[in-house]
């Protein structure tokens, strides 16, 4: 225990970012943009866009269901990139991005898996069917839940962290299968946007595009916040270990 070591640890602590994204101007601007886009989506989807002829009001689930699926892809995609970069560089920052992406992707996957069956109850007469897209989406959700359990419950060692990163990359391999499952296999899941223009009323299309922009901004905001918090947790843990190794925390609770 030396005075120099104590001073060094104290100065390191003052530099620790424990996930305080509020101080960032970019984060604040993104938060404002997200709020505006969400409000616009709700207004356009419920006030401007017409009620669908066959399904009625339940079709309006679509304006948040499909964008949530894209936000899920974004989250899981960032997890794949973060995991690959972690394996290549062993950087805590990339691992924090991977954790943030997986967690936010899992939240949006849950939103997709709940809102989809509610729409299906009206459209198909049943909450669930073993359609290829539904089944593969459920599978990818389970893979990333396993990733998060591994990270949160036991992945403190380097081997566990590498294994979790591998699982994060493996889960990403399912994303193209989910996206193209409608074209690859016959199923019940509809495809509204096609190469020929799809079958959306212009106001419905604007609501969908606003929803996509809003959910993309929201997912980036949440991933940013979660990654910063994870980075702060990693730094606190690292400093705690350093201090304990130097005997600075002896006799402390």
């Amino acid at each position, binding site marked *: *225990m030396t*005075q120099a070591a*104590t*001073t060094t*640890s*104290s100065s390191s*602590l003052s530099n*620790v970012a*424990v*996930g*305080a994204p509020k101080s960032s101007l970019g984060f604040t601007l993104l938060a404002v943009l997200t709020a505006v886009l969400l409000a616009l989506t709700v207004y356009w989807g419920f006030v401007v866009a017409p009620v669908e002829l066959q*399904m*009625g*009001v*339940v*079709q*309006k*689930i679509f304006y*948040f*269901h499909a964008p*949530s699926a894209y936000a899920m892809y974004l989250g899981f995609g960032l997890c794949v990139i973060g995991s690959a970069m972690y394996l290549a560089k062993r950087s805590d920052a990339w691992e924090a991005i991977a954790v943030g992406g997986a967690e*936010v992707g899992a*939240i949006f996957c*849950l*939103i997709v898996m*709940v*809102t989809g069956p*509610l*729409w299906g*109850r*009206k459209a198909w*007469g049943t909450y669930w069917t073993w359609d290829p897209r539904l089944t593969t989406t459920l599978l990818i959700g389970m893979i990333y839940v396993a990733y998060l359990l591994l990270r949160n419950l036991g992945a403190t060692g380097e081997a566990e962290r590498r294994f979790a990163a591998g699982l994060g990359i493996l889960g990403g391999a399912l994303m193209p299968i989910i996206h193209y499952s409608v074209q690859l296999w016959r199923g019940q899941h509809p495809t509204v946007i096609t190469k020929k223009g799809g079958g959306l009323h212009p106001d419905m299309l604007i609501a969908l595009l606003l929803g996509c922009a809003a959910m993309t901004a*929201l997912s980036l905001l*949440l991933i940013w*916040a*979660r990654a910063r*918090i994870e980075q*702060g*947790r990693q730094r*606190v843990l690292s*400093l*705690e270990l350093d*201090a304990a190794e130097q005997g*600075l*925390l*002896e006799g*402390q*609770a």
Partner: protein
Amino acid sequence: MKVVKRSAPMLWIVLQLALVLSVLTPLTAFAEEPKEDAAESRSAAFQAVEGPSAEQVPGGPLLIGAYGVILVLLVAYVARLGSLHAKNQVELERLTRALESTRKG
């Protein structure tokens, strides 16, 4: 023997009737359909619903349920982020206090 003599003409009559009917039956296709008057042409049949009907799946509650779930999940996740952030702050303060007391000691 008497029974055989009486049944032979009956069989012949039945065969003749069958032949006539087989010739006449296709001719009904050429019969003119009865003309409908204006009232009958607009007639519609109202039938009582038996079993499940199409409107038994109301869209409103499903829509409210979907948006409610989205809101609850997002608010819960933001609360989790706040909780994790607060936990980090507590850990940092504990570490700072411990190091300060070590320095003073």
